[in-house]
């Protein structure tokens, strides 16, 4: 009897201790995969069109960090007043009536939707953010997704949203259905992120919030900005196809071997081709995101590797990244030619499209200008 009681207590103690240990472990690092903060921009840097590109962007040596000059979203002026109610047909063909846009939640994996609402001048109505939204005006809003891009219904309801905008990249999908069960209008937009459908996403968001005119204005502005930026980049990039840098976007996390290549349709392909560079992943036929095969990566011979800042830090910076099997055997690895950008920004598209292209183009074609600036 005595022995049994003691061993029971022991087992209970072990179980309790392990629960406490694990919970304590989770609590201390809620957002380990995101670089802490969007870096301050440098608003008065030399315009891209006035920079002198390096002679050969393929053989430049050393890492560069691309910093977006204006990290906050520039809204349309003046802020529009939503005309409600509106009934819209969303991306999935669902008819939704929105009759109040006073408390907005715009949530997706890339942070595009929240940025779009801010771009429409309705940022003061946003009541929460996803884990991909970190620009200065939004970063202090309550976070409604946990690390794995998972939604929690009660947490969302607690913010009393009058309308929710999302796509299909956050889960579980049942939570979205629960929100609809609860009577909240949920408008679903396309999950596709490229430089070509900014306008569609902006118009869908603006339509659902009853500000279609502001939507047209913002959509036109973004398209103009991207076009102008493409033209500036074309002037910087080498004319000769063979002298254009071969670029690959790698998603790396930690030293445990989470290395993915972002290929066609991942968004990274759109960025790389807009930069006038050769998208290595598309060239070798990577669809979506795929784990790296070290030999295949070495064979593809990228000159430059694009990364998220947090990802680069997680493998120990440029020196660590140069040691990743496969990377070490590429020209990029040998030249330590890594270009990184803040995790929140690099694949955010939407209103940040042109500023992101601008910063990446500087890092790719005129890396010395970043050093001069500071």
């Amino acid at each position: 009897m005595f022995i049994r009681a003691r061993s029971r207590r022991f087992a209970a103690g072990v179980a309790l201790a392990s629960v406490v240990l694990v919970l304590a472990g989770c609590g201390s690092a809620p957002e380990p995969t995101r670089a802490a903060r969007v870096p301050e921009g440098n608003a008065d840097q030399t315009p891209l069109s006035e920079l002198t590109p390096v002679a050969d962007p393929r053989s430049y040596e050393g890492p560069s960090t691309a910093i977006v000059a204006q990290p906050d979203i520039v809204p349309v002026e003046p802020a529009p007043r939503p005309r409600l109610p509106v009934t819209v047909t969303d991306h999935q063909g669902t008819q939704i009536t929105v009759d109040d846009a006073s408390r907005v939640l715009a949530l997706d994996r890339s942070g595009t939707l929240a940025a779009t609402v801010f771009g429409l001048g309705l940022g003061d109505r946003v009541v929460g953010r996803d884990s991909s939204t970190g620009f200065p005006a939004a970063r202090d809003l309550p976070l409604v997704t946990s690390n794995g891009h998972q939604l929690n219904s009660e947490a969302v309801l607690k913010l009393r949203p009058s309308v929710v905008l999302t796509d299909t990249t956050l889960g579980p999908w049942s939570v979205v259905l629960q929100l609809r069960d609860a009577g909240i209008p949920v408008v679903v937009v396309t999950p596709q992120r490229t430089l070509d459908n900014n306008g569609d996403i902006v118009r869908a968001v603006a339509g659902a919030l009853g500000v279609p005119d502001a939507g047209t204005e913002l959509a036109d502005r973004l398209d103009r900005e991207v076009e102008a930026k493409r033209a500036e980049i074309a002037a910087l990039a080498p004319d000769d196809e063979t002298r254009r840098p071969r670029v690959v976007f790698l998603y790396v996390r930690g030293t445990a071997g989470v290395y993915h290549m972002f290929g066609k349709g991942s968004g990274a392909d759109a960025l790389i081709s807009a930069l006038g560079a050769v998208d290595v992943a598309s060239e070798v036929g990577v669809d979506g995101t795929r784990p790296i095969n070290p030999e295949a990566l070495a064979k593809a011979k990228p000159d430059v590797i694009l990364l998220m800042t947090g990802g680069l830090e997680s493998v120990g910076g440029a020196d660590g990244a140069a040691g990743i099997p496969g990377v070490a055997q590429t020209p990029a690895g040998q030249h330590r030619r890594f270009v990184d950008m803040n995790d929140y920004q690099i694949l955010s598209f939407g209103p940040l499209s042109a500023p992101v292209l601008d910063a990446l183009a500087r890092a790719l074609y005129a890396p010395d200008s970043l050093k001069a600036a500071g």
Partner: protein
Amino acid sequence: MTATASPPATPGTDTAAPAGRRPVRVVVLFAVLVAGLVVVSLVSAAVGQFGIPLSQVVGSILNRVGIDVLAAPADPFAEAALWDVRFPRVVLALLVGGVLGVCGALMQGCFGNPLAEPGVVGVSSGAAVGACLSIVFGWTFLGSFTTPALAFCTGLATTLAVYVLARSKGKAGVVTMILTGVAVNAVAGAAISFLVFAGDQAAREQIVFWQLGSLAGSRWVYVATIAPLVAVCAIVALLLAKRLDLLSLGDRQARHLGVDVEVLRLVTIVVVAVAVSAAVSYSGIIGFVGLVVPHLIRMITGPGHRVLIPASLLGGALLLVAADLLARNAFDYADLPIGMLTALVGGPFFFWLLLRTRRREGGWT
């Protein structure tokens, strides 16, 4: 695995419960389980991230049944959080936990093996293959029911495949069946790994989420679709209890006593496959409930299935509701994977059970 010759699923029970005190223990056990279930369910219904005062929760429930004693929440969002999010989740936790508990008891009884749980014959891994298929290929032909429906079908199919493969000359030997289960589980694991590779990043995250188990997306329609299956399976399980008691004497003895052992095994496996596939199709994989709960009950009241099966039903439900309560509230704006919690408590507990049995009886061989 030679344990099939004697009634092995009952380690330690003889010393734990002297015969004369057993009826009292049974009454006390059921009283504690029912009371615990009511209390934990009510606490679970009252506690959540939305933060609604207890009086309003009670008021809201009473209002729905027509009693206007306490004020319901004036805030429509609070009302929605209770009725569209929290309550279906509590009910689904009860159903899924109960199913896992009962099916663990059925499997251990049917196989005469203390390690048996629904996962052994491939229910969970089979269901996971179906779920992963629909996630990776983005199938939505049944709307929001596509993933659970596929999980249900593949879970069922995998289990039946294990049974058919293990059968020869009209019999399915226990050890053969468990080993067939190991082989089929390995293939299912390979299929899941390939689907993880083939999926994009969002699909990968969904698969991980599904495999860790969660009740985060519970809705009334889900409760409505699995409740009838759970009810039917629970009733059949209760009807099988007496035969499982005879089976614990050994296959041959049970046959002499008039039990059609093969039919009994088949019925048990079908019941387990249907009920567990239905349960995990919404919740994802939740381990250890089916393994640990029946062992715990047996330690208290002995091996008789007429007590074990209903007590495992209640015990499983209690364990899962409690685990879900923790999963929902441990972190702001986040849900812990419930499968992680059950395994975290279940793993050390099972180890202790192993040590205890070894000390007393030389252990399972």
